[in-house]
């Protein structure tokens, strides 16, 4: 094999858009035409082959994934009110890279067993003012330091943890929806009807994983602390094909989007990170990098959308068309 191939290591290979095909197969969504059945049944997936010091090849059990943060099992009930010690989670979203691919939304919905119309994470088309150019704006829960939702919850079903995360305990929520009315960023959604079936049994429910959902309760983006315990980025950050979503620990001063890792404070300083509606005093923990020197024209984000979705952006598009005339 020529040396050029060695440069294309697996990471680059996957990033060049082939993730779709590969992941389709892995998720079982595409036809598994490329399957060689000769090896079927021989590998259990739980074992790996090792060439030992004395030249023999043996099969041993695959070592379990290291737990980055103990305990790896997300805590249940009131134990989930304690945050992960020493951590202060924060998210940075690079608006110059977002092109409304909506893979973040799909990843989040799949990871948390949501229906396609339930969006913990939504991507809006925002236009700041007349002179501005529209840009795509992913909006997760901001996990504010002074959360208006937590203030008004009558039963303490939603709470702020020391690791910055604001969680919802579905076992305690009475569904009064005051938190939904109080949140200025329209972050929370409600289970108006029976949520989709989940593999996780109700007794294994943890507010950190937020599955299974319960009817008549509120749910929202939880910054995936169950993934962080395994050292994995949240579904949205790892799902974004453009690497627009960075996630990390403020205390560690590092945020990563899966390929790059940057120092958080320096990133915010250099790229002038801001917070949405900061003046409301909620002290959000999601920072946005302004869409300077964009990678894409915002219109490319409209290409693959169904017609009814494009209708939703009509006001902004009309404004833009009038401006050009």
């Amino acid at each position, binding site marked *: 094999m020529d040396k050029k191939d060695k440069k294309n290591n697996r990471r680059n290979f996957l990033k060049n858009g082939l993730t779709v095909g590969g992941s389709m197969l892995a998720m079982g969504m595409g036809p598994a035409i490329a399957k060689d059945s000769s090896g079927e049944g021989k590998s259990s997936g739980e074992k790996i082959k090792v060439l030992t010091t004395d030249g023999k090849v043996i099969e041993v059990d695959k070592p379990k994934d290291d737990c980055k943060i103990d305990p790896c099992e997300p805590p249940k009930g009131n134990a989930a009110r304690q945050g992960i010690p020493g951590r202060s989670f924060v998210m940075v979203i690079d608006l110059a890279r977002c092109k409304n691919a909506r893979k973040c939304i799909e990843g989040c919905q799949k990871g948390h067993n949501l229906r396609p119309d339930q969006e913990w994470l939504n991507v809006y088309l925002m236009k700041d003012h007349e002179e501005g150019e529209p840009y795509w704006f992913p909006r997760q829960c901001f996990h504010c330091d002074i959360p208006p939702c937590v203030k*008004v919850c009558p*039963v303490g079903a939603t709470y702020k943890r020391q690791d910055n995360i604001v969680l919802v305990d579905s076992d305690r*929520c*009475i*569904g*009064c929806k005051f938190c939904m009315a109080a949140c200025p960023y*329209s972050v929370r959604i*409600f289970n108006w*009807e029976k949520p989709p079936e989940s593999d996780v049994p109700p007794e294994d429910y943890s507010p950190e994983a937020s599955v299974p959902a319960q009817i008549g309760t509120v749910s929202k983006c939880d910054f995936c602390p169950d993934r962080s315990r395994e050292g994995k980025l949240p579904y949205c950050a790892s799902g974004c094909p453009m690497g627009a979503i960075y996630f990390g620990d403020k205390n560690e001063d590092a945020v990563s989007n899966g390929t790059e890792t940057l120092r958080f404070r320096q990133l915010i300083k250099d790229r002038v990170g801001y917070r949405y509606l900061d003046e409301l005093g909620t002290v959000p923990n999601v920072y946005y990098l302004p869409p300077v020197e964009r990678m894409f024209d915002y219109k490319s984000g409209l290409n693959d959308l169904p017609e009814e979705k494009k209708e939703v952006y009509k006001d902004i598009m009309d404004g833009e068309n009038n401006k050009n005339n």
Partner: protein
Amino acid sequence: MKKLARNLETPSRQWYMWVIILSLIVLFGVYALIRQIQEGQIITGMRDNAVWGIYTANFIFFMGLSYAGALVSCSFQLLRIQWAKPLLRMAELITVSTLIVGAPYILFCLGRLDRIHYLFVYGRIQSPITWDVIAISTDLVFCAAFLYFTHIRDFAKLRDMEGLKVAKWRKKLYGILALNYRGTPLQKKYLHQAHDIMAAIIIPTAVIAYSLLSWLFGMSLKPGWHSTIFGPYFVVTAAYSGVALLIIIMWLYRKSRKLEGYITNKHFNYMAFGLVLLTMAYGYFTFSEYITDWYNQTSQMSALLGKFTDMSQYGALQLFHILFTMFVPLIILGLPWFRSINSITLVSLFIVIALWIKRYLIVVPPLETPFIPIQDVRPEYVQYSMTWVEISLTVSGLALIVLIFTIASKIAPIIPVAEIEDVEDTAKPLIRFQTKGA
């Protein structure tokens, strides 16, 4: 007394028919509620943005009506206003019935009614909902107690009345409820004191309870809700709606029970005068709120106010509301040649309807105008529209109020006879202002 007591005697077939019809309406509402609990709130019109719909509007509306008894009746009691005596029991009945019917509406908003007790077990004192739970339950108990206090003397009279054709168990009940009241000076003193204490404590309780309700909205950042005027505004609106409803009830009883002797032109005149004052106060608060928001032209409030001036959105409702709460009452009630018992009542009816619309306009449009624009393909998520569940629960709530009145009318006469017949011992002033050396 005898004439009034005749109404209490064995109920006629007509009465039973009326009760059955009302009960059926109420039961249909219960059925709607059961369906809602089983299938989830997806069968209501509430969705992720308009999370509170007419349940909350009804809640505020009925709580506001309860001011009829709480503020009006108790102030009349404390200020020893003589002409208002026939109206006291009516007012108190309004209070208790609207409190009983109104409070559950906020519970219908809950997604998990099986967890209601969490409000007490896990209650957080920082939440406006907890304050409401405490305040409304306190208010309900106090007003119910006050209602009972005002009945004691009449129960005594009924217990002692000869020739009252009621069932034996009812006579016995009157006896128990009369608490051995014999009319002795000592007993009169005790009853008076209990009366005054409750009246005195209900007024601040009601004011605080309703202000706490207003802070369900005030203590949030939403444009349209984030207004410092909401506390006093809601209190004035409640008094306004309470007085208007009281006038309507007065008219109904006057007509149906032929109580022209007790509820006279004078009563309507005085109540109309109060209504005019409240119209002006309400108009002042409304105007001051809207003009301040309009003048500042913040982008959020401009979007919301735009919905109120746009006829295709909420403009029509807002116009109806402003017309019938600020202008029409002043004309009809202020100008003597328009003023008559019927016109006063008609105006009050429109006021009550317009104030329900106002509560709807407070709850729903701000929810539909969040900071981040709603970019949703589903129309029911963009605009709130009520479903049969919510409408039937509203109608059955009204039916339940009428039902409570219907049943109460069989318990004691609607005019507090004892109050009217014994004049001398009610003239003692509550607070004696005396300067030194007088």
